[in-house]
């Protein structure tokens, strides 16, 4: 069991550049960041500042060039990836929430959540039970059989959050989760993320430009030209 005071996400001197020589662009320079359980932190900055690159690296989608990264107490990067099965790592430890919710259009709300549990090896019945619980928890249980096309923006985002939480990840990465929502719905989504952080002892990282949710974040890290300010 991890000490609750130890960071769930720990990044040390992480750097990432694209291209070489004259075309080299330093996307991230010596980033050091610790995010603890129950924290909901924001990453903001102008376009091209490196927010998405940092989120992709924390999500083990993009390989940094140097530095060290720990997720939930496990060192996953130290000059190179230390695990070959990064997709399994994502499945086990990380939940993703997208700006455009990215629900599978051919799956009902409950199946969109259950698919993650199915991938994790749960039986069909157990996966659907857990998915139904999550939808109830996020107050969209009444829309369990609806397909994404018939869900409102807020409902779809809640289903997407339910999917991100399906495997009880301790790390939740959200990319502009409120960009497509009005202030009321954006507030509800942020409250839900806060609830998740507390209930699941999770660290939530939100990439956002949305100033109306700044007051709901514990801390906002501003990125400019690949450097944390």
């Amino acid at each position: 069991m991890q000490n609750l005071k130890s960071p769930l996400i720990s990044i040390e001197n992480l750097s990432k550049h694209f291209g070489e020589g004259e075309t080299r662009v330093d996307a991230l320079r010596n980033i050091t960041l610790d995010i603890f359980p129950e924290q909901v932190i924001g990453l903001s900055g102008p376009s091209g500042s490196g927010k998405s690159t940092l989120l992709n690296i924390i999500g083990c989608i993009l390989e940094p060039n140097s530095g060290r990264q720990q997720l939930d107490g496990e060192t996953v990067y130290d000059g190179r990836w230390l695990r070959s099965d990064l997709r399994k790592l994502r499945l086990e430890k990380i939940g993703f929430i997208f700006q455009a919710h990215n629900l599978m259009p051919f799956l009902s709300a409950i199946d969109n959540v259950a698919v993650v549990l199915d991938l994790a090896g749960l039986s069909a019945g157990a996966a659907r039970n857990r998915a139904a619980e999550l939808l109830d928890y996020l107050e969209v249980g009444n829309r369990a059989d609806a397909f994404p096309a018939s869900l409102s923006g807020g409902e779809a985002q809640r289903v997407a959050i339910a999917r991100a939480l399906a495997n009880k990840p301790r790390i939740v990465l959200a990319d502009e989760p409120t960009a497509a929502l009005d202030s009321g719905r954006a507030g509800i989504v942020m409250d839900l993320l806060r609830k998740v952080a507390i209930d699941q002892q999770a660290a939530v990282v939100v990439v956002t430009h949305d100033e109306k949710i700044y007051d709901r974040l514990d801390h906002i890290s501003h990125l400019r030209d690949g450097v944390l300010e």
Partner: protein
Amino acid sequence: MNLAYRDVRHNLGRFIVTCLGLSLLLGVVLSMIGIYRGLIADALDLVETMDAQVWVVEKGTRGPFAESSRITLDARESIARIHGVRKTGAVTFQSIETENGASKLRLYVIGYEPGQLGGPQLITSGRGLTGRNYEAVADSRAKLRPGDHIQLGRNNFTIVGTTDNAVSSGGEPAIFLSLDDAQRLQFDLSPSATRRERARGIETTNPTETISAVIAQVSENASPDHIASEIRRWKHLAAMTQDEQSYILTESVVEKARKQIGMFTSILIVVSAVIIALIIHTMTMDKIREIATLKLIGAPDRIIAGLIIQQALAMGLIGFGLGAIFINTIKSYFPKRLVLQPLDGLGLAGVVIVICLLASLFGVYTALKVDPAKALAG
């Protein structure tokens, strides 16, 4: 959770339309194979209908189907006297065009001696020829019925019976006449032509002296090969067994048409493969964001590959099944015979499976190359 099934179920209309389009394409491929088989069957049916074991034709020819052959009628008596020959028949063949009502009708006229070899094996309606003049038995594809009359040359013939599966290698339905009638039809000149020939001092030959071939059946203890060899050696005639005649028909007479259809079928299969590959690629590209999301949330490659391969196989097999049903339903409306054999169907199904697997590899490659970060892009 079977994602391929869920996706198909959700987009059922589009999937069915795609399958229907593919079914038409595969139906055309199947019909080409059927036409190819029909061509061979048509070519062989006539030879089989004659129920001969040895064919005797003019020396130096491979008649009567591959080349023209003319021999004298007394050759039949001479063949009948060979030890080991059980039964013989004198036959003539010619193509003729006539009219049935308002439509043109091409017929393949077979003359034979009623009671001897060379007549239809099975009378499906009416009766066979009895030796009376101006009577005929027609293949059912001529669409003539007992009691119908038809003008052949200068004479009017009464249809007394019908038979099945008697067509020329060109697909013309056969009509059986007595040898005498057939010879007159083939060799009789019009009165004016006869007068002209006589004025030139040329006396017309007796048409009943000339036939196209003699066919023979041999005794149980005799070998057709041996009898054919004897005839070649002593009778100054060409002779071949039934197998040799069948070989000439399939490998020589219909060879070009066979190759043409075979080539066209091959091209169609290649076109089908390209179209299937494009459909699968498009289906994959339509799901690129979902595939990126699946990768991002941790779906292994086999789940993503399974999604594409299962849909490709389902599309191919359903398309093939619908195409096969479609062609089986309309095959009787084709002007020429379409022979659909179960083995050909299974073979094409196998080819479709291989095409779908190969085509889906392209889709799988595209899917596996998708960057999961694409899911995060707004």
